């Protein structure tokens, strides 16, 4: 990289690409050429910077200046002012919402200050389509060192010592998993990278694959050496076209450089990687079901034991590891297991990437040491709640997780503490909710998801979740009977206890946790037929404010059951008994005279 005096790093992650960041790259390149700066300044399309909310992002290196919400038309100014004259383009700098201050230095932004980037270390820093850049960032050094200096057993020991636990949801110690698989003798073993990222609202795996695909490939090779496997598969969602493209490029380049394939570094170790595509089934993120899917079958989970480490793909010992888990691994070998285990909390080492989303100011990817509090993540890094609203709850763990309330904002989060407060880590989705969100409706949203995604193999999950969903629907429609809250709880427990796989076993969690923390909200729906957040359509009450109504009759004309009466130029009234709560009157009134509660 040293040849150039300046690098312009443009985010090429999905979020920014959707707002034309590739056009920015193109414009920058054109103008750099036009200004004859091609020998001095290089434009690089990188992976996600994490700061997706304010994308597209352009970072100027080495000045460490971050421009946000850049438009293709802003390119001329960046070139003329910053690149040529060395003056920052003030209006494109990030404005910190709490102090209303423009911040230019990337490292001074509260969003980045508290983060520690290990898994995301190269995202936003290197060109993911160029293996040379990964190599320049110490890439493939770990595997080189391992193949020349370490035995497989030493590799497994280092992993155990590091304390790394699986980032795909379960939190199982990675070293132990590798140990089991390495002990099971077989003529062939497999390493599978789980890139099925199913939690709707989590996108860290996708960002790692888009921003730093080689780190995952390198880690898979390390895993292969450790357990004695020569073949790896990456099971990736077909809905991730950009990640698929970058992986294909990366695998091609690694093969070309002899960093994958036969006799890597002349060590006699062979390792090759192939892609396999998911086809839109959430349950395929579960490892036994994923293996079924790679074998070309319906992705239905199988009983454990036998665990994949014993009998996995084609009945051979197999390890399945998550993308983020893998992305941590090369650094562990470069900096040492002690270094890694010095970060984090007592039982959860290292960092975790969270996809911070929902009603928070800075939606994006954040990587923080385990043990940070939710308050720090949501308010310091996330910049607080959008539009000055009140924080209500944060949901972690996706469809398997639960809702956490303000009372637990100061709990240091790691695998065990999250479970203790009734949620879980899951893959790292973190959805912030404010006073406008109805918790019953949120529970219903997750249940709709699990109901759709249940593979149907066991009755409790197939029928049970459908029943839960129907009960929640009745509650949100004000049709529930008084004993339904007990029924909800009872059925939830039955599903948890009898389901075969993790999907069913955890699917009632969103219901149980909202029942625990937001019981009053459920009660309001059931007993008062009222939705405190004003979300549930069927429970809303429409009235016409007499003082504001000018009697234009617009509402009466659109009302489907014709339940609005009144004469021209006189205030109208709604007959509540007939109103179907369609909201048409609210939309039709140009005088703000219709009120919805």
């Amino acid at each position, binding site marked *: 990289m040293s040849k150039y005096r300046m690098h312009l790093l443009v985010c090429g992650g*999905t*979020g920014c*690409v*959707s*707002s034309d960041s590739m056009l920015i790259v193109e414009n920058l390149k054109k103008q750099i050429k036009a200004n004859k700066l091609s020998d001095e300044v290089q434009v690089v399309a990188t992976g996600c910077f994490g700061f*997706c*909310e*304010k*994308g597209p992002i352009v970072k100027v290196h080495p000045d460490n200046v971050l421009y946000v919400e850049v438009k293709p038309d802003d390119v001329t100014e960046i070139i003329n002012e910053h690149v040529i004259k060395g003056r920052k383009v003030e209006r494109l700098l990030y404005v910190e919402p709490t102090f209303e201050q423009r911040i230019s230095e990337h490292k001074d932004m509260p969003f980045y200050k508290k983060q520690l980037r290990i898994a995301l270390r190269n995202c936003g820093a290197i060109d993911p389509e160029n293996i040379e850049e990964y190599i320049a960032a110490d890439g493939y050094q770990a595997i080189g060192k391992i193949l020349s200096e370490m035995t497989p057993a030493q590799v497994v020991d280092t992993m155990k010592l590091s304390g790394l636990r699986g980032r795909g949801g379960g939190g199982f110690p990675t070293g132990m998993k590798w140990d089991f698989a390495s002990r099971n003798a077989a003529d062939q073993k497999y390493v599978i990278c789980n890139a099925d990222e*199913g*939690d*709707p*609202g*989590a*996108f860290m795996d*996708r*960002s790692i694959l888009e921003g730093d695909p080689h780190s995952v490939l390198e880690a898979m090779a390390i895993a292969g050496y450790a357990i004695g496997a020569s073949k790896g598969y990456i099971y990736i969602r*077909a*809905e*991730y*076209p950009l990640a698929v493209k970058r992986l294909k490029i990366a695998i091609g380049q690694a093969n070309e450089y002899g960093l994958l394939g036969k006799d890597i570094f002349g060590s006699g170790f062979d390792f090759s990687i192939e892609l*396999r*595509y*998911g*086809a*839109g*089934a*959430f349950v395929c993120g579960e490892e036994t079901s994923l293996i079924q*899917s*790679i*074998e*070309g*079958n*319906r*992705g*239905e989970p199988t009983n454990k034991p036998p665990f994949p480490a014993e009998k996995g793909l*084609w009945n051979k010992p197999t390890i399945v590891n998550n993308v983020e888990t893998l992305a941590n691994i090369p650094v562990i070998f470069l900096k040492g297991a002690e270094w890694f285990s010095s970060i984090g909390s007592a039982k959860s080492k290292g960092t975790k990437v969270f*996809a911070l*989303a*929902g*009603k928070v100011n800075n*939606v*994006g990817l954040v990587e923080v040491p385990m043990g940070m509090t939710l308050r720090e993540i949501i308010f310091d890094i996330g910049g607080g709640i959008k539009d000055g609203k009140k924080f209500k709850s944060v*949901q972690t763990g*996706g469809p398997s997780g639960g809702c956490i309330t303000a009372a637990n904002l100061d709990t240091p989060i790691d695998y065990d503490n999250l479970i203790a407060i009734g949620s879980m880590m899951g893959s790292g*989705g973190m*959805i912030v*909710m404010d006073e406008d*969100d109805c918790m019953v409706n*949120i529970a219903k*949203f*997750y249940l709709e*998801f699990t109901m759709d995604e249940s*593979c149907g193999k066991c009755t409790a999950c197939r029928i049970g979740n459908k029943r839960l969903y129907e009960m929640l629907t009745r509650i949100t429609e004000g049709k529930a009977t008084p004993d339904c809250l007990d029924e909800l709880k009872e059925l939830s427990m039955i599903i948890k206890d009898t389901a075969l796989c993790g999907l069913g076993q955890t699917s009632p969690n969103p219901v149980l946790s909202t029942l625990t923390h937001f019981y009053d909200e459920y009660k309001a729906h059931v007993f008062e037929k009222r939705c405190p957040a004003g979300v549930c359509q069927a429970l809303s009450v429409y009235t016409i404010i007499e003082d504001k109504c000018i009697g234009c009759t617009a509402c009466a004309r659109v009302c489907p059951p014709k339940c609005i009466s009144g004469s021209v130029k006189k205030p109208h009234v709604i007959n509540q008994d007939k109103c179907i709560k369609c909201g048409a009157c609210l939309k039709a009134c140009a005088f703000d005279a219709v009120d919805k509660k």
Partner: protein
Amino acid sequence: MCTNELLHEKFVELDAFIDGLEEKEGSLITVLHKTQELFGYLPKEIQLHVARKLDIPAAKVNGVVTFYSYFTETPRGEFIINVCMGTACFVRGAEELLKEIQDKLKIKAGQTSTDGKFSIDALRCVGACGLAPVVMVNGKVYGRVKKEQLDDILATCVSENA
């Protein structure tokens, strides 16, 4: 005539793809991805063709096709409107967007309009949560979509492809 030739070419390409696979075992899903890419959907006759070619029971092929939501047995519309219903989009109003689009096009999610022009799908996170709520039309992502913009979005995608 012309369409028949086209169809024939697609079958030739599919067969060549299958013949070129290193391992046939376990390749069914890979083959179905390719098939859907070629034909746009997976009707029974084509499933049967795949089954014969891979020498596996047609019931197994159908079992797999119906299990995975990515595979479709009916033709999709010219414009596929994907409304992201991931959690991040949901809490920023995706539910109402979906309702609005369904009302506008008078079809439900998962259906195709009778003129074959539009299909609506509800997707999980497309990975652009920073732009929530997100609507995708034939792969193009629209972020921070408001109900009022929907008409414009539909109109531009139709005119751009006209």
